[in-house]
């Protein structure tokens, strides 16, 4: 499939989507659909629910692209935020067993032989950054973000005051930002094409 829009920034694509350019939505899906699906699947642990979350998120993007403010946020952040919120809503709605997200081990071996090199690189960076966090911070981030637990649920599950949970989440995210923001780690899209 040709990718005529491949040279455009994510942000430009969102602005085109705001003009109902379906090709721009398709290109955004080609860039982030896989990460979106992986995220949704990790949270909801069910392929059908993960598909629903991704579809709802991309339609939300489509319908509210005109409200996107490129100065305030990266388009990829916005897209993945939309996906995550829907996945968390789904997992809470479904009251699914989320305890298994406590286990870090049962990761599918890898994303498959066809996995995009860029995605693999991103995953390795993020996982390395997570591993370098203090255990308590990593646990709070993983349970909240991948497990879909609210801070109140986390406080109860971990037997900690809610203030402690909040501090761990804040410290963890801030440290992650430092680790991932280190220079030389920026990877542009063009390098993958």
């Amino acid at each position, binding site marked *: 499939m040709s990718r005529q829009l491949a040279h455009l920034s994510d942000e430009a694509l969102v602005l085109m989507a705001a003009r109902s350019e379906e090709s721009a939505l398709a290109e955004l899906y080609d860039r982030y659909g896989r990460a979106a699906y992986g995220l949704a699947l990790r949270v909801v642990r069910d392929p059908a629910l993960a598909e629903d979350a991704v579809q709802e998120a991309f339609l939300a993007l489509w319908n509210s692209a005109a409200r996107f403010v490129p100065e305030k946020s990266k388009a990829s952040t916005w897209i993945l*935020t939309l996906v995550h919120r829907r996945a968390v809503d789904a997992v809470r709605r479904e009251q699914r067993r989320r305890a298994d997200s406590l286990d870090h081990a049962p990761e599918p071996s890898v*994303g498959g032989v066809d996995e995009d090199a860029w995605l693999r690189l991103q995953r390795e960076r*993020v996982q390395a950054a997570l591993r370098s966090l203090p255990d308590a911070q990593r646990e709070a981030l993983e349970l909240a973000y991948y497990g879909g637990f609210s801070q109140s649920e986390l406080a109860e599950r971990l037997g900690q005051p809610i*203030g402690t949970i909040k501090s761990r989440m804040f410290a963890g995210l801030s440290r992650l930002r430092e680790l991932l923001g280190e220079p030389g780690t920026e990877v542009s899209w063009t390098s993958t094409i």
Partner: protein
Amino acid sequence: MDVHDLTAAYALDALEPAEAEAYEAHLGQCEDCRAQLAELNESAAALAFGAVAPAPPAHLRESILAAAAAERSNVVPLFRRRFAPRVLAVAAAAAACVAVGFTVAALRPGGTHLVATVVLAADRTATLQVDGLAHAPQGKTYEAWVIPAGGAPRPAGIFTGGGLTLRGKVPAHAVVAVTLERAGGVSAPTTTPLVEART
């Protein structure tokens, strides 16, 4: 509970609905929290890439694109017609067409056209983007109007350039128009629309 402390939890979607609502209300008034949230959102979204990403089923892409096409935002760009004023509800209320025409001509000596784009969401909220619009002059503002079929213009927000999210819902077959008004906006249009789009 200090609502400032909720930024990280909000970025992780780890608030209960009522807490999230309270935080969002606070966010509208707290610039520090907005700035911090923007940063923490980036970190949280980075976590998305930490998940193993098997290929989504091939039909998902088609399903999304088909649904998007079906929900296709209703967009009707209309060129500005400086010399062909049409009798619109707005125009009927206009009192100073010539002055506006002059002001706009002065703003845009090249006479390039304006393009208004209305993006209507499924819940009938809408955004308006006007391309080619200069920043509103000192003491003036652009004001958007929603004119339901056969109804009177309803003020839908003021802006100084670019576009805005329209206040209230936009009914079917309405016209969205933009006029130049005094700063602060007015409750009924006093000038001819610079541009209009039909939903």
